[in-house]
C-alpha cells in the first residue's frame, strides 16, 4: 500500500462540527467558571443566536443564500436541510456518520451533515448538491458521474459527488488507489465503485487505469 493514501502529519484536521463535540461543549457551558477556555466558544454561539434552548430562528448560508431556519438546537444540519429547507438532495442513509450519503461542504470541507448540528453552522458557507451546478451547467464532477454511470439508484450519489469534488480539491485523487481510499467513506450499495472511481479520476485530470 503506497504512502500517498494517508495524509502527512502536518495536514490540518477538518473543522470540527460534530454533534459529539457540541455536547462536550454544552457540558462545558454549564461549568463556565471551571472551564474558561470554552467561554469563547459559548460566546461565538450566542453571538449568532442569543437563545440556544427551545425552538429559535437562525440563519444559515446555504448555496450562497441566507436561509432562515426555525429549529431546536438538537436539530442536525441534515434534518434542517431536508425537513426545514426542502433541500432533499442531501440524503439520510444511516444518521450516524457511517454511510456518507449526507456529505456536504462546510467552508469548503466535506462534512457529514448528520453529525453536525444546524445551529452550529451559523456564519459558515454550506454547499449542498443543489448548489454545485451553475444554473443548467453541471459541475464537471456531476457530468463525469453521468458519463461514467457512477450510480444506479442515485441515493448515495449526492454524497459521492460532494466527496468526489472535495477529494480532488484535497489532492487525494492522484492515483487510483488513493482515490479509492479517500472515497471509501461513501457507501454505494448498488456497487458503482469502479464507475465512481472513473469519474473522480477523470475530474482529477488523470483517467483511471484500473
Amino acid at each position, binding site marked *: 500500500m503506497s504512502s500517498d493514501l494517508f495524509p502527512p502529519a502536518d495536514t490540518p484536521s477538518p473543522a470540527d462540527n460534530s454533534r459529539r463535540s457540541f455536547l462536550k461543549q454544552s457540558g462545558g457551558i454549564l461549568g463556565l467558571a471551571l472551564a474558561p477556555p470554552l467561554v469563547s466558544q459559548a460566546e461565538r454561539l450566542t453571538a449568532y443566536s442569543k437563545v440556544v434552548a427551545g425552538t429559535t430562528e437562525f440563519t444559515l448560508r446555504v448555496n450562497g443564500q441566507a436561509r432562515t431556519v426555525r429549529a431546536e438546537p*438538537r436539530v442536525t444540519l441534515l434534518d434542517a436541510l431536508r425537513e426545514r429547507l426542502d433541500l432533499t438532495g442531501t440524503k439520510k442513509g444511516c444518521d450516524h456518520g457511517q454511510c456518507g450519503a449526507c456529505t456536504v461542504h462546510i467552508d469548503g470541507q466535506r462534512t457529514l451533515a448528520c453529525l453536525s448540528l444546524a445551529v452550529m453552522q451559523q456564519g459558515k458557507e454550506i454547499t449542498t448538491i443543489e448548489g454545485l451546478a451553475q444554473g443548467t451547467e453541471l459541475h464537471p464532477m456531476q457530468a463525469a458521474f453521468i458519463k461514467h454511470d457512477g450510480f444506479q439508484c442515485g441515493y448515495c450519489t449526492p454524497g459521492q459527488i460532494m466527496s468526489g469534488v472535495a477529494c480532488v480539491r484535497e489532492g487525494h485523487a492522484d492515483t487510483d488507489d488513493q482515490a479509492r481510499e479517500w472515497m471509501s467513506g461513501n457507501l454505494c*450499495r448498488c456497487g458503482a465503485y469502479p464507475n465512481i472511481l472513473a469519474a473522480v479520476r477523470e475530474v482529477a485530470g488523470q483517467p483511471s487505469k484500473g
Partner: protein
Amino acid sequence: MDNEPQFFETNAAPGVVGQPLSRVDGWAKVTGQARYSAEYNQLPGLVHAVLKTSDVAKGRVTSIDTSAAQRQPGVLAIFTHENLPKLAKTPNNPDDRKAFASSPMSFFPMASDQVHYAGQPVAMVVADTLEHAQYAATLLKVNIAAEVPVSSYLDPKATSYVPKNVKGTAGVTKRGDAQAAFRSAPVQLTATYHHATNHHNPMEPGATTAHWEAPDRLTVYDTTQGVSETQKTLAAMLGLATEQVRVVTKYLGGGFGCKAWVWPHVVLAPLAAKAVGRPVKLVLTRPQQFTGMGHREEQEQTLRLGATKEGKLLGIVHEKTSTTSPWDDYAETNSRIINMLYALPAFESTYHLAKASVMTSTSTRAPGDMPGSFAIECSMDDLAYQLGLDPIQVRLLNYAEKDATNGHPWSSKSLKQCYARGAELFGWSKRNPKNGQTRQGKLLVGYGMATASYPVHNSVGNARVRLYADGRAVVQAGATDLGTGTYTIITQVAADALGVPPENVRFELGDTILPTTQWSGGSTAAGRVSSSVYLAAQEVWQKLIKAAVMDKKSPLYGAKAADVVMEKGRLQLKADPGKGEAFGEVMKRASLSDVEGTAQGRYGSVYKEPGATADANMNKEEKEAAAGYSMHAFGTHFCEVHVDPELGTVRVARWVSVMSAGRILNPKTARSQVIGGAIFGIGSALMEQTVRDPNLARYTNADLASYHVPVNADIPNMTVDFIDEHDPHVNAMGVKGIGEISIVGVTAAVANAVFHATGRRLRSLPMTPDKVLEALRQPA
C-alpha cells in the same frame, strides 16, 4: 403469440436500442432533484411518525407508559397494540392474506401484546417534527414479560422439521434415484456450506409517506419495488377498493428484494395519518431497517455429489437447513439451480426449517440461486481438482444441452461462449493448474471461476404509448426503477419502436395511475416492460397505417394495411419503400394531435402460451412444459484474489463477468448492473454477516459501521462483456433480465480463487480473516 410482431423483425436496422445511452434520469440524480419517497415535504401539514421497537425477542407487552411522552410538545398521537386501529384484513389471517398481492409475512405487529422478534414495532409516536417524535419515543416505558427466545436453527432449543412447501417448492423433491446414484458413484464428494445472515441494506431506508386526500382516497409515497402490488395489498388491509389507493414511487434508492413487500411500517403510516388527520411520514432508522424489511436467512447446505472417474455427474443429494419465523415456512429455494445447472441424471433435495424468534426472511437478490450456486459451484471446483481437470473443462463435460429437470430445450443458451470469452478476457490459460503455487511477494495469488444462471420468471404488464404529431411521445407503465435503468432502457425501446430520437420520449413510471404492470423483481422488469411498450407502439402504427390507407391524399391510399410497414418514423410499402410518408403528415391531414396505443407485454413461458398463468396451481416446470422451452440467462464470473497469509485478508484483485441474457438493451446500464451484482456478492463472500446474539436473539451489529458492505477500496476495476443472443421465445423484445444473475456464482468464484491461492477450501461465508487464518493453520 405467433401473430404478434417481434422487435427482431420490425427493427432490423440499428437504432438506439443496444447503444450505451447515459441514464435519462441522470441529471435529476446528480443535481439532487430526484425526489425519493421520504421527500414529499410539500404535503399540507406533514407530520412525522417514529417507531418504538422491542429490545426483547420474545414475550408479551405487559404495559406501556406513554404519560411522559404524551406531555412532550408537538406530540399528536401515540399508538400501541391497545389503541392501534384494526386492519380490515390482516396478514395473521390466512383467508385475509389471499386478498394481498404482496404480504411478506403472516404476522402484523401491534395487533396484540405478543412480541415475536427483537426490533418488532411495539409503539408509534406521531409529532409535528421529527425531533419531537424521536425524543418522545425514547420516553415510552415499555414493559415486556420476556420469555426465552430461540435464536436460530443452530440454537439447541430449536426443533428442525421438513416443511410441506417452501416458496412453492416441495419440501422434498426427487428426480431419479439420487441416493443410489451417489452410493454407487466411483467419485463421491460430500461437503457442508454455511451462510451467515445477510441484509439488503439499500442506501435508502424503508420510508412511507401517507396522505389521505379524502376519507376514501389515500395516496402513499412508498419505497416499493411494485406500486401495483402495494396498492392492492394496502387497499385490502385498510378496507378500501384498490382504485381508492394510489401508490407513487418515482425514485427508489435500491431495493434488492427487501422493498418488494408491504412490511408493517407501510401500513402503520396510513393508519397514523388517518388517525391524526394529517399526512404522515415514517422513515425507518438504519437499525430498524435490519428488523423492518427482512433479510437473507442464515443457512447451511450439505451437497453429496456422485460422479464418474471421468468427471461426469451421476447424482446429487442436497439438503438445506435454515431459520424461519414462528409463522412462515420460508426458505430460499437453493435446490433450483443445483437441479438445472448441469446435465445431472438424478437429484434429490430436502429442506429443513427451524422456527426461531426472528421475522420472516425474504427475497434477497437471486433468492435461492445465489446461495445454491455457492454449494454447487464449489463442489464442481472440488471435482475438477480431485480429478486433475481444469475447472472450465469439468463444467463443459457436464454441459446441459437441454434442461435435465424437464427434458426441454433451452429457449437460448450461450454459456459455452461465456466460458470462452471470460477465459480469454481474464487470461485463464496463464493459471497454474496446481493450487497454492502462485505468489506475488508475500501474497498468495489465486484464480477462480464459477457459472451463473437465473431463470426467466413469468410476468405480465401493460403500457401506454402516446405519439404526438410533432414527433414527441409520452410512454407510461406503472413500473419501478430501482436504479436498474428502467427509465433509460424503456426510453430507448420506445424511441426505436416509434422511430423518434430518445430525447423526444418521456417515459413515466412509478405510479398506480399509470397502466398496471407487475413489480420490478425476479429480473422481470426489462423483459416485460420493454415488450409491452414495444407492442403498444405497434398499436399506434396499426392505427396510423389504417388512417393512411384510407386517406385519398396519402401515397399509401388503397394499399393493404398488411403491406405497409414503419421504418424510422416513416410509413411505407414493404415492397416499395419509396412509396410512403412520415407519420406526422398522416396525423396532420387527419387532424390528429396524437395517437395512443396500449398493449400487454408478457415475459417467460406466458409469452407464447398466455394461458399458462391462468392456472395458479401450475408450477414453473408445468408452465415451461406448456411453452415447450426452458428459459434461463447464463453467464460466468472469473476472479483473482490476493490472500495475505499473515493477516488472513482476502482482496479481490481482478474481476471478469461475461453474461448472456438475450438482447442487451443498454450495455452501459447493463454493465453497471453486472458489476453491482458482483460487488454485492463479493460483500457476501468476504465481509457481510449479521450476528444474532445466541441468548437474546437480538442483532449485535445492526448498523453500517459493524455490518460491513464493500467500500470503494475493496473493489478493483471490473471487466464485463455480453454474448449477444437471439431469443424469439422469451418475449417480443428477446430480452432476459440481468439484475440477479449478476450475483449468482460470485461467492463461489471468490471461494474457488481462495482455494487456488491457498490450497484451503473455505465453505463458510463470509470468508473473514479469522476463518482464513484458521484454514491456513490446517494442513492443505
